């Protein structure tokens, strides 16, 4: 059976069954396997406190991966994540230095700065038709340049305002960290956008074949640009949360989020060619990556080993289910 007939069939099934994508099932199976292996290593691995802590750490990656997923669904990629995260964090902290108004606007200001980067990406990709990989690499370099000039090459001295700390580490509902709630809210909005709005359906359509989407009367360029703006804003929001968590922004704080964000999306079964994937898969991918990181750090694996295991896991999992069809 060819892939397209599969799609047509599965789209008529009830939602739960449709979501039972082999990739998502594999990802969840790997999560259970990791939890099992972890519990063999240390008995505190399955305690609610530890799991909640993991969920909190995962939520930073989750917010960033949400934006990445939107872009990957279009068949593009956003390599400007590292410095968009740093820009969001640094600009949020910087705004807080300008009196009470600045403190009040710190979070939105950080996000808006990220959206500006996303806007440049979006214009480059959608209107100038430059490959996304290249534009986003270039805007990443420009964002880095701007931040180096702004900070003088050192980590900025401003510390994160209370609003950012509250978002990242506070508790509105007792027992559940705010960061987790934020991720849940953003995730819910994204699921709504992707499955219930014409914007979301257009995103899938463009990811499958932009020409066809264009001929169906979708303003594909506007949709692509909007998606990049959202992705930029979410990356910056991730940066704001991270700065709140660490109570300050630092150089290269975003570097360790590019590969995990892409990996989480792709391991969750979203096709890197675009047009296919579910948010549930991304959630699974984010938790999987976070647990993997956590286990490696519990085992006191040095950075070198972590990088190698990371790369190997991603390649192996992709070889299991991320292959493109052969030439015939």
């Amino acid at each position, binding site marked *: 059976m060819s892939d397209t007939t599969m799609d047509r069939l599965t789209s008529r099934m009830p939602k739960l069954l449709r979501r039972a994508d082999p990739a998502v099932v594999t990802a969840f199976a790997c999560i259970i396997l990791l939890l099992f292996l972890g519990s063999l290593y240390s008995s505190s691995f399955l305690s609610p406190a530890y799991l909640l802590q993991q969920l909190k750490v995962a939520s930073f990656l989750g917010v960033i991966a949400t934006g990445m997923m939107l872009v990957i669904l279009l068949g593009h*990629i956003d390599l400007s994540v590292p410095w968009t995260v740093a820009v969001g964090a640094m600009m949020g902290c910087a705004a807080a230095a300008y009196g009470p108004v600045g403190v009040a606007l710190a979070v939105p200001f950080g996000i808006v700065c990220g959206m500006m980067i996303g806007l*440049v990406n979006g214009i*480059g990709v959608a209107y*100038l*038709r*430059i*490959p996304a*990989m*290249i*534009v986003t*690499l*270039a*805007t*990443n*370099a*420009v*964002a*880095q*340049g*701007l931040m*180096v*000039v702004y900070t*003088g*090459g050192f980590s900025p001295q401003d510390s994160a305002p209370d609003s950012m700390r509250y978002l990242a580490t506070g508790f509105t509902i007792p027992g559940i960290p705010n960061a987790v709630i934020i991720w849940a809210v953003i995730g819910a909005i994204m699921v709504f956008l992707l499955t219930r709005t014409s914007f979301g359906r257009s995103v899938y359509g463009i990811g499958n074949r*932009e*020409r066809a989407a*264009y*001929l169906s009367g979708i303003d*594909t360029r506007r949709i692509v640009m909007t998606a990049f703006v959202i992705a930029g804003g979410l990356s910056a929001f991730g940066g704001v949360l991270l700065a709140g968590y660490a109570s300050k922004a630092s150089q*290269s704080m975003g*570097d360790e989020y*590019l*590969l995990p964000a*892409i*990996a989480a999306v*792709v391991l969750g079964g979203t096709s*890197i*060619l675009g047009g296919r994937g579910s948010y549930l898969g991304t959630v699974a991918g984010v938790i999987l990556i976070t647990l993997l990181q956590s286990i490696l750090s519990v085992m006191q694996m*040095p*950075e*070198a*080993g*972590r*990088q*190698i*295991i*990371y*790369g*190997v896991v*991603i*390649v192996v999992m*992709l*070889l299991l289910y*991320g*292959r*493109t*069809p*052969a*030439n015939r």
Partner: protein
Amino acid sequence: MTEWRYWLAEQRGTLLSLGIFIVMFIIYTSNHPAGLTANVVQTASNKGVLLAFVAMAQTLVVLTAGIDLSVGMIFVLTNCLASWLVVGTGIETAVGVVAVLGTGALCGALNGAIVIFGRLQPIVTTIATGAIYFGLALLLRPFPGGSVNEHLADALTGKLFGVVPASLVVLLAVVLLVWVPFSRSVLGRAAYASGSSEIAAYMSGMPLLRAKFAAYTLAGTLAAMGGLFLTFFTYTGEAALASGNAYTLFSIAAVVLGGVSLYGGRGSAIGAIFGALAFRTIGDLLFVFDFDPLWQPLFQGVVLLLAVSLGAFGLFRVRNRLDWFQ
């Protein structure tokens, strides 16, 4: 159209990058406090050659319509490896050089094998393998250090006859011995063809798989050549994440400036070399004009963004709007 006009149309990107480089280099040397001396040329060429090798590597992969985001990491890994192996007597050094180049070839071959036989997307594959290579580099050199055969290093980074930079001669030799034969061989033509239209090339029975595999492997070897030269300049090995990322980024910038199409099938490594030299010179312009070095990353980023935006001018020639959505 006559023969030479076809040739001109084909070489337009290369010639344009040569032109950009010459203009930039004239601005650079005429404002340099020391003027155009052999030492200025030597320093400039030593810095440029590093990027030129990595840019050549990137070109080979880009020609097949792929991308290698791990070139910078192979560059860093081979730098670390060379700081262990390229030492001692003449024979030991020679074995070390071969081992370093072989490691680069192996890294490239792994990328190629996963992309071609594993049928994964080059972007994701090379990001992931880049992490592996960087991890290996960290294992080799947790802290910067090591050494290199200084006689060889000084010979290859010095001047021949007191005028010609030796690194430039090595670059020329690599172009003549590796790039020219490859681009004219069946495999090289097949690599071009796979980038320009994979389906047509497949239908014509070209050796696509072998060609792509050769391109990736050769790319790894060339990146290792760059890593080797980095060791010759610095005398040490260092697993620096920032440097790996920067070289990957700059290699793409050089390829774009050098007139190589990112959609594959068009351009030449010679163009990419001039692109690399031009990009380096542009980055160094700030120093001769006495700007704060803090501005350099921003300046390079803006140059890169402008360079990639230039490609958008092709849109004005598109007659059918549907061609926007290739």
